[in-house]
């Protein structure tokens, strides 16, 4: 047991990925920031004593408290409070958890759908490939945010209002996922086209391995590198798409705000001098998306040496 762990650790240490990671300060810094954000968001109950989603715990008299370092600030509200007396820091962390859940789920949804279609299209070719790829072409001409808005609008029409608040998060995941899958389909198809003519695939085919086994057991691991790169950048895009939709008011309901909803609600107070209500969620979103993007860039450089 101990030995195995050691060898795994050694394997990681010996790998080119690890080497390139410790040689890249941006990758280290962004990973560090992301770990902190993920940890604080997913264990927010232990990080902060406030629960902004429980209206009965709020006191309206605390509303509009500025950040603690300003003149009227209170030590117990480090980043101040919003118009309903919610602690900004706690609200941002709870909100970023929703943003992250939506972002991750949407990317995984898009990845599974896109890779499955791209892989099979590249492998089988023919009419099937043509249909799938024309689908992606058509969808790529529609801006992804418009696509997400469309899906959300249709979902609103189908789902009853009582159900909508509960379903909002799933609708959002589906809407963003469906708008991002063509990227994955294209990349995985292109990679599959390269792989499928290699000798190991021909060899498997000759000894009678089934198509499904060849695709998912032999080809899939070899096309995962570019897909992971796209996936990381896609995560940042999904988080921003979620914020955009929520900012437009079609995302998660205001009682359980995500980052975008927080920025929208804070927008009302921009002119009146209560800048912190919209500023902190916005800067948090920037840091989150920027870190993911930097990490994605590093991954692209490392996992895709052909690009260098």
């Amino acid at each position: 047991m101990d030995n195995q762990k050691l060898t795994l650790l050694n394997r990681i240490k010996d790998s080119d990925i690890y080497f390139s990671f410790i040689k890249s300060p941006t990758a280290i810094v962004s990973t560090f920031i992301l770990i902190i954000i993920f940890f604080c968001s997913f264990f927010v109950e232990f990080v902060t004593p406030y629960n902004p989603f429980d209206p009965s715990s709020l006191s309206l008299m605390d509303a509009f408290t500025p950040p603690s370092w300003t003149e009227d600030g209170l030590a117990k509200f480090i980043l101040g409070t919003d118009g309903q007396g919610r602690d900004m820091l706690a609200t941002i962390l709870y909100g970023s958890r929703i943003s992250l859940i939506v972002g991750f789920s949407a990317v995984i949804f898009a990845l599974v759908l896109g890779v499955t279609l791209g892989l099979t299209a590249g492998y089988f070719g023919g009419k099937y490939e043509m249909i799938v790829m024309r689908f992606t072409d058509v969808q790529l001409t529609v801006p992804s945010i418009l696509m997400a808005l469309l899906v959300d609008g249709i979902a609103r029409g189908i789902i009853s209002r009582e159900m909508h608040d509960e379903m909002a998060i799933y609708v959002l995941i589906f809407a963003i996922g469906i708008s991002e899958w063509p990227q994955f389909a294209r990349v995985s198809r292109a990679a599959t086209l390269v792989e499928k003519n290699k000798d190991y695939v021909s060899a498997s085919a000759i000894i009678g391995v089934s198509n499904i086994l060849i695709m998912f057991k032999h080809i899939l691991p070899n096309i995962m590198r570019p897909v992971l790169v796209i996936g990381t950048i896609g995560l940042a895009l999904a988080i921003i798409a979620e914020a955009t939709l929520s900012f437009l008011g079609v995302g998660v309901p205001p009682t359980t705000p995500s980052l975008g909803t927080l920025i929208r609600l804070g927008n009302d107070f921009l002119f009146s001098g209560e800048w912190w209500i919209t500023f902190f969620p916005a800067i948090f979103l920037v840091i989150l998306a920027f870190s993911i993007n930097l990490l994605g860039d590093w991954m692209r450089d490392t996992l895709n040496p052909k690009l260098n």
Partner: protein
Amino acid sequence: MKTKNLFKIFLTLLFVFATSISWAKTVKWSMQGDSLTLDPHAQNEGPTTMVSRQVYEALVTRGLDMSIGPQLAHKWKAVDPTTWYFYLREDVKFSNGQDMTSEDVVFSLLRAQQPTSDFKEYISTIISVKAIDKYTIQIKTREPNPILLNQLSNIFVMSKQWATDNFVIAPQNWDAGQETFSATNAMGTGPFKITLREPNTKTVFKKNNKWWGNVEHNITEIQLLPIKNAATRVAALLSGEIDIVTDAPVQDLDRIKSSAGHKVESTPQMRTIFLGMDQAADQLRTGNTGDNPFKKKEVRQALYQAIDIEAIKKKVMRGLSEPAGIITFPGVTGYTKALDKRLPYDVGAAKKLLADAGYPDGFEVELRCPNDRYVNDEAICTAVVGMLGKIGVNVSLFAQTKSKHFKELKDNQGDFYMLGWGVPTLDSHYVFHYLYETDASWNKVNFSDSEVDAAIRVMEGEVDLDKRNAAIANAWKIVRDNIAYLPLHHQVISWASKTNVNVPIRPNNEPLFRFSSVD
């Protein structure tokens, strides 16, 4: 060749200059919501009346100081306590050039009494309307009516011919979502006429050159551009895109005041914001207890005492509201300071009341709110949700645009809702007749009390003012003790405009552009 080019450039510049500095005086007016319909009798709602008031006129009207004065009728007299004669101006033309006669007035009054009219409560005491000659009409009331003029000031007159030609003899059935010609077109005798109507986007009013009145304004065009988002509305005002905002957000008043080119005016508004609770349903539609807790007065009182109205005033309204004990405000017949006193804010007492009523663990209910009608309406509701959460009442908030909110309320879909009430007649009767009378059209709490109903009849028919005032006072006492509604506060409104735009502020929040000017 070169000189010719220069000449062309000069001409172009001249053209640009001449078109931008034209003599047209346009006022771009914005508020958070739009008029719900242009049909003058279909919806009795603030912004709807605000828009209609620029286009349509009534027999009598309230001036800038809110006193009743002549409009289409230049004089009137009551020959006996129930028979009135109104003498119409003979120089009034509709904006299409047609003469306005007693036929049109009779038609309009009868139209406003149709079942689909939302103004029928105003004139429910009128039993007959007759044209005596071309410019005289006779109105008979069921009983002597001391507030007939107040009521008539809100009944707009439209053209019988126009209504017949466009198949709008009956008012639009707004509650049923009917679309009619009159809902998107208006043709009245007023100082302006509507030339473009795009609901919720843009409404263009042009000066009506056929208007009979003495033109005191210098406005050639008004554009109503509703902007729902408060920050966007203020940004539009500050950037000069909008000239006047008649519901400036309370949080931005200081910012607007600090701008050199803008001014802010505030006045207590004739409107009270309150919450209604359905007291008749056997089971709440959105509840979890299987019964209706609102049937018990203790529960209603618990909710009342759990609301910290001072906190709402300070934090949500930024001091610009006046906590209310009854749904009427100073200046209305029947209002007294003593009645307007609130029950104290007391969470402990509220919890005890709730426990005594049999709900020690509270209950669940949905609160319906408009999000583009009253000052900070959604923020008030969110605050109330938190306050009621503290006594264990688990409220979920459902905020939506006012047209849907009002429609669904009228459709009896609300257990617990927010509403605001103004009193255009400045008489308590209006409040009782709409909000408290058994089966009244806006009595969505289904309050019913025979003594109140009897008092309403007295208010309609009693000319002895002492007796009438006693009836009003008694009715207020009953509904106040009953906690039929949860009053919140009287609104204070603020208008913000460019310094060169002068639109006199009025306590009913209704701009009168015929008294406005652009310098």
